[in-house]
């Protein structure tokens, strides 16, 4: 799906608001039911963006972390009144199990949110946001980001050729390997520095540093963005107010409360889900238009 369609058509600042809110509530609300529902909402968003492909490629490490957190927390934290059983003389408490699970679902939700962030917040959009505060920092960030793949490519080339001279990290004694590695990195760096001087010349030649910079990437803040931002603010306001009044929060320590949701919890859950799913409305709308316009073709 291309830029300018559905969710992707939203202004970077709206997206930033969406992710800032999503992350905040993913950490503030601390109730497994709310968090798992939020995770489900994030999954739906991912599914709409790319059919969940990107998420699937991350799912294994994510679920691994989820399980690990559930398992590890009870082992290292022994707070809580309700002891389930003793492992040797280590008490495993119900509270720490539930706490671990809640934390793990919070993490799962956040990571899933980040997957869609990676899809939605392209480099261009990120720069657009960043460049307002500091054009120079934005440029620096981007050049640094571009440097990594370049260095990697060059190191590969260098290692290939140096194999002919026996300078490789895969042969010889450990010290020799270390020395060879240092040589390779040294050569790589002096080569790259040499080139960086030329890059600097090229920047100066094009007037870098002659005055204030402007920024090229352009996004228009349209009515669609205004509506979305308004909706997001409203949902976030409701969710935040409820949270500030003690809803959407499961008291675990010292003694586990009931999981059942109070009215306030349900309200917080609804506001949270609305917040997460609302931008999908544009995705739906654009898809319907697309279908109705191209039906039968």
């Amino acid at each position, binding site marked *: 799906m291309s830029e300018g369609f559905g969710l992707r058509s939203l202004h970077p600042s709206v997206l930033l608001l969406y992710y800032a809110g999503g992350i905040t509530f993913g950490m503030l609300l601390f109730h497994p039911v709310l968090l798992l529902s939020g995770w489900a909402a994030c999954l739906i968003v991912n599914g709409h963006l790319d059919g969940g492909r990107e998420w699937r490629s991350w799912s294994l490490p994510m679920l691994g972390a989820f399980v690990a957190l559930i398992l590890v927390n009870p082992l290292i934290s022994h707070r809580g009144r309700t002891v389930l059983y003793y492992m040797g003389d280590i008490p495993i408490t119900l509270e720490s199990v539930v706490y671990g699970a809640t934390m793990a679902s919070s993490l799962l939700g956040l990571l899933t949110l980040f997957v869609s962030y990676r899809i939605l917040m392209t480099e261009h959009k990120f720069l657009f946001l960043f460049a307002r505060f500091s054009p120079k920092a934005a440029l620096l960030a981007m050049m640094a980001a571009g440097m990594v793949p370049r260095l990697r*490519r060059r190191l590969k080339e260098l290692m290939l050729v140096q194999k002919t001279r026996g300078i490789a990290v895969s042969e010889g004694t450990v010290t020799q390997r270390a020395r060879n590695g240092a040589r390779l990195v040294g050569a790589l760096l002096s080569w790259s520095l040499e080139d960086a001087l030329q890059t600097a010349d090229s920047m100066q030649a094009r007037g870098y540093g002659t005055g204030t910079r402007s920024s090229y990437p352009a996004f228009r803040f349209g009515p669609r963005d205004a509506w979305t931002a308004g909706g997001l603010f409203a949902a976030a306001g409701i969710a935040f107010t409820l949270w500030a009044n003690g809803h959407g929060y499961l008291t675990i320590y010292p003694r586990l409360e009931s999981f059942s949701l109070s009215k306030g919890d349900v309200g917080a859950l609804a506001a949270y889900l609305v917040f997460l799913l609302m931008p999908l409305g544009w995705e739906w709308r654009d898809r319907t238009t697309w279908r109705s316009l191209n039906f039968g073709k």
Partner: protein
Amino acid sequence: MAIVELRQVTFRYPDAEEPALSGVTASILEGDFVVLAGPSGSGKSTLLRLLKREVSPGGTLSGTILLERRKIESWPAREAASAVGLVMQHPENQLVVDTVEHELAFGMENFGLERSAMRRRMAEMAGFFGLEPLLARRSDELSGGQKQTVNLASVLMLQPRLLLLDEPLAQLDPLAARELLGMLKRLNDEWGITVVMSEHRIDDLLPIADRVIRLERGSAVFDGTPRAYAAEAWRRQDPAWIESLPAVTRWALEEAGRATSIRTAQEKPAWMGTLSGEARRFMDAERRNDGGPTEEPEEPEEPEEPEEPEEPEEPEEPEEPEEPEEPEEPEEPEEPEPMPSFLPLSVKEARAHPAIRDAAAHAAPAAKPPASEAKPLLQANGLFFAYDKNSPAVLRGLEWTVRQGDRIALFGGNGSGKSTLLQLLAGLREPQRGEVRLEGVKLSRLPTQARFSRIGYLAQNPLLHFVHDTLREDLLHAASRVGSPSPADEVGRMADRLGLSGLLGLHPHDLSGGERQLGALALALLGRPQLLLLDEPTKGVDALAKKRLAGHLEEVHRAGVTLVMATHDVEFASRYANRCSLLFQGEIVADGEPEAFFRGNLFYTTPLHRLLHHAHDPKPAEEGAVQR
């Protein structure tokens, strides 16, 4: 109006003994296409960088540089940066940001332009250069030629009035170079933008340039039209000058010289008369067509001797305030070399003249010794290679035999897999299918060290071979690796042999392109290879250094080393190879002696062969068959 005026410009780098530029006086007219010629180290880059204040080197400068009649130092920073654009040699190093679109916008951002203004210029420039399909691409995915086009376009975004190019073609293959050159010519013609371009391979440039300025050891030794340059080069008989002429011109000049010697030996042959007379007329017409406005007034030609036809061109530039001093005056020989009256700068011009075709028919190119039927040294059997399983295969069942004593030039388009093939032959990469055998033994069976010393490999970028702080250390390391009893002596001998003795203490990065190439060659030779695989050895190397390299390679070959070089440099290959092969779609599709190879080709061939091909084969049916 002169856009640039240099008055007695002398420049000295901080700790240099000799000045990099001494007393350079020249003026460049608006809309000129000026070529800066000269060997490397002659001050071309220094001169260009002095014209571009932002990247001017530190040092002591005397004399005046006027840009649009104002001293260059007195320009405000922003105006100066936008008035003069600079494109440098390495395409990749000039790219600053990630995508093509953003790269193009980078300069405009620096000038704080409004978004709407930027978009507009972007639309125009992307349209002009045909970059629209590339706008969203990451710039590191582009080919070298595309990168250089992006660099050129992004410089032009600032709408400079003077465009400086510092060897922009050196890192490009000939096809990409020609494309970029066409673009520059178009800019010069259509926009009237002044172009000053330094290049050491100026043979493609002479036909399109308005003026040539030649620097040697910091002084301007020539300033005039390309035709006058050709004539002057011939008059001097200096190999460094003649080497810089287009092959066709060189050939025509040599041909004319031979004809004159025949004339003096016996009676003047009939066709020679027509050559002089007709060529004269042809050239006059030519001058009237493209000589530019400055040459018109004195055009009525006296029937003068063809010996010094180009002299009047010099004083014909009335707008030049000071005549560039021509140090050739004192050394004017009493009896000048026979000056040809006809100076073709391109195949088209040469072919237009019937007498030249005649001469071409007389001059059968010297026959090269046929490729030996010696025993096979390296054999590639059914090589198949892909970089990963989803990308298309680079080599598809390639079969090839390198015989003992071969000197093979391997041609192929960009990305056709020449480099990959060499790396496979060198045992640096493993083929997915097939095998490489060195004297019948599979490469993978050979111990690594023996493999890499028996097969020398020179990468496209010679810098990749150096990892120590000085050339000496690198050579010593290589010598001791192959178990030399006294590495230092061995290194000394090798350095002497390749003329590197004075450079041993330098850091590899401080060497010039040609010297790096020789240094890498020395590294490979220390392993006493039977076979040397060279990847584009002439890339970014000037004409004279190329000749030196060729000399050394020939010597190496005489010592019994088989050579295989992947190259785009058809001229080089035609002179020094005894077998030519063409790689296409992962297979060797043509393989044979150079003469037969070049005669059968229209693209992978030398300009000279393009000319002679027709002269030798006038039967239209046959020509047509080959052309199609």
